[in-house]
């Protein structure tokens, strides 16, 4: 009779990396469903195209059965949620593939990447297809109707759009100085990307992940606080030029970014102190880009910029070792 010999501990919490990842996917299902509710079946097609784009390179070049750990699926879904509903599917596919190849695989795959792959995919699309990615159809209209040139042939000259397009609340604010009722922002009955409209759904899903300890609540909390403080100060200085904190938080991608993008475990700090610094930095950058930058929205760049400094944040926020006054 022979016995198994392993190193201690001989117990485990039962958690696993795929389990965390698939829980995140699960928590994204209601967000995708909300997108489908507002933007029709097109939304689901965009999600599918982006997920397929993310899974394909992971399958080809990733680790053995890497597609099964769920992380590439998250990248695909998250990327889709940052895209306008009417985006041609081939672009969504390309964005997913770019995010995984250049945002993850080139670094060495799962756990090795510096930048959030979904946001890198979006940054690529924004640079490559600036028009397609800023064309926002209005919510509502016939539910079954396509919201843009969904089935465009890759790299062909874009068809003239005959759908009604509208500016996002942020675009309205930035370029026309028009506000949007807060309630519309929270429920999502406004223009915008697939996943940035239904703030309440996103918050509920994030709450689920935080309860299961699959999401560090300190990151979204400090992002919201930081956005609120910086935009609140500006609003107090000049209310006519700068929108108030609630508008800043609930418009655009702040909620989606704070709950699902900034909290990506791989690309966020490991220390609690670091999470506060990271969140505060993102909030500051979001407000700065929105208020003084040329873009209406700044969440993507804010998170990517802070991703880059995560190693430094980790280094300066090491916990104090038990029985010492110094950090490790």
């Amino acid at each position, binding site marked *: 009779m022979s016995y198994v010999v392993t190193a*201690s501990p001989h117990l485990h919490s039962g958690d696993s990396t795929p389990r*965390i990842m698939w829980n995140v996917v699960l928590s994204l299902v209601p967000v995708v469903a909300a997108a489908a509710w507002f933007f029709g079946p097109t939304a689901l097609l965009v999600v599918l195209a982006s997920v397929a784009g993310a899974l394909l390179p992971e399958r080809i070049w990733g680790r053995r059965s890497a597609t099964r750990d769920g992380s590439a699926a998250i990248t695909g879904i998250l990327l889709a949620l940052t895209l306008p509903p009417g985006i041609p599917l081939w672009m969504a596919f390309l964005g997913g593939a770019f995010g995984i190849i250049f945002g993850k695989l080139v670094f060495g795959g799962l*756990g090795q990447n510096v930048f959030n792959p979904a946001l890198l995919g979006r940054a690529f699309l924004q640079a490559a297809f600036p028009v397609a990615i800023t064309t926002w159809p209005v919510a509502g209209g016939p539910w079954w109707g396509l919201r843009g040139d969904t089935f465009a042939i890759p790299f062909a000259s874009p068809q003239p759009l005959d759908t009604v397009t509208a500016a996002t609340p942020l675009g309205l604010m930035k370029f026309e100085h028009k506000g949007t009722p807060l309630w519309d922002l929270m429920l999502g009955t406004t223009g915008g990307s697939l996943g940035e409209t239904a703030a309440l759904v996103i918050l509920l899903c994030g709450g689920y992940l935080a309860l299961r300890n699959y999401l560090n609540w300190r990151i979204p909390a400090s992002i919201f606080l930081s956005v609120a403080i910086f935009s609140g100060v500006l609003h107090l200085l000049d209310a006519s030029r700068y929108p108030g904190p609630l508008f800043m938080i609930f418009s655009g991608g702040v909620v989606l970014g704070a709950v699902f993008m900034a909290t990506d475990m791989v690309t966020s700090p490991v220390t609690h102190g670091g999470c506060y610094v990271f969140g505060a930095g993102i909030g500051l950058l979001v407000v700065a880009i929105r208020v003084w930058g040329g873009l209406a929205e700044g969440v993507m760049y804010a998170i990517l910029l802070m991703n880059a400094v995560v190693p430094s944040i980790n280094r300066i926020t090491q*916990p104090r070792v038990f029985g010492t006054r110094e950090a*490790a």
Partner: protein
Amino acid sequence: MRALLRFRHGVHPPERKERTAALETRRMPYPPEVVLPLRQHAGKPAIPLVKAGDRVERGDKIAAADGYVSVPIHASATGTVAAVGLWPHPDGSYDQAIRIAVEPWSAQAARPRLVPEWRGLSPREIVAAVQEAGVVGLGGAAFPTHVKLSPPKDKRIEALVVNGCECEPYLTTDHRTMADFPDRVLLGVRLMMKCLGVPKALFGIERNKPDAIEAIRRALPGDIDVEVLPLTVKYPQGAEKMLIQALTGREVPSGKLPLDVGVVVQNVASVATIAEVFETGLPLVERIVTVSGNGVRKPANLIVPVGTKLRDLLDACGGLSDDASEIVSGGPMMGVSQRDLETPVSKGTTGILVLTEAEAQRNRTYPCIRCGHCLDACPVFLNPQLLGSLALKARYGEMEPLHLRDCMLCGCCSYVCPSHIPLSQIFAAAKTAIRKAKTTEPAKAPA
């Protein structure tokens, strides 16, 4: 001193104590052979005094202490010395051990008192008797008890801390010791307080043992100051530094000892053993061992002669189930997997667990996803994520300034890691590598 009754971080593994927690301790029959390793304690191994063919009686000294930080070893059964030589050791190696063929039908009779009566002895004489009786810490580390009872003169000791936490899952030896022998435990507390000359004892027990807390409280004598403090159930509450923080609010400084914050910590089983050797007059020749896990048919808390082979111990517990797959000496968090049923129970063996295929954890490892759960678990606030990545690259030199020496290999980080990275195993290997490098370096350097 301010009792916090808890410590920060740590984990909540499943307790799995229900199979043995309510079972009264019982005595197992003498096995046909006992094997007593010379190294059963921290410090120098004992020096054998017997040779093959010698007849020894239960309680006879068969190996002498080698210096101060060492204790003698006594025959745990009457019989004939079969051999002195290499034998499987509970730590997984082979080491010198004395094998005794136990006399069948021997009465293992009561003998004239070998340990003197404690009344009338000075503290110093009690401490000497404790060493002579071979008493070591029975919580697992097996540090010689007499050393802990004689702190250097320049350290002011304010209190004795009694460790009744038993935070390792499955184990119920300390629990049963407190519930079944509260008077013995409190006699041990009295003796230790006398040796240390302290006015106060703090008795920490995890809240999941209400019957033990109740038994100890009921048996409290009026003439000594013993405070029983029920503590939060969390692993590793029984680690010295965590326990001291929970009971006194003090942090033992890195690299220092409990003495440096004015306390001495003793495991409740060691406390009971001190009383037992003075009560019975017999040196440490047996201990209580929890045998549990789903792989053993009749789990039990057994009084076991030191040196009993796992084979005989498990036979006394109904044998193994068909799906038994892993045998662990100690608790599941820090215990050592055993590969040989010939391995004996030593003084430091708190329990023997037989895990089934389903209980034994063998999972696929994933890359670190930097979730930070290990930082939240580490009771000494290290960064296992960083240390682990350095260790895997063999960058051991960079691990030392990150306080690797403060890691006590409690296993919390491995327990929570969703990627199943064996962090505590990696750290144990790194510690060994660093120690080796240190011992070989001076030889290389020109003098």
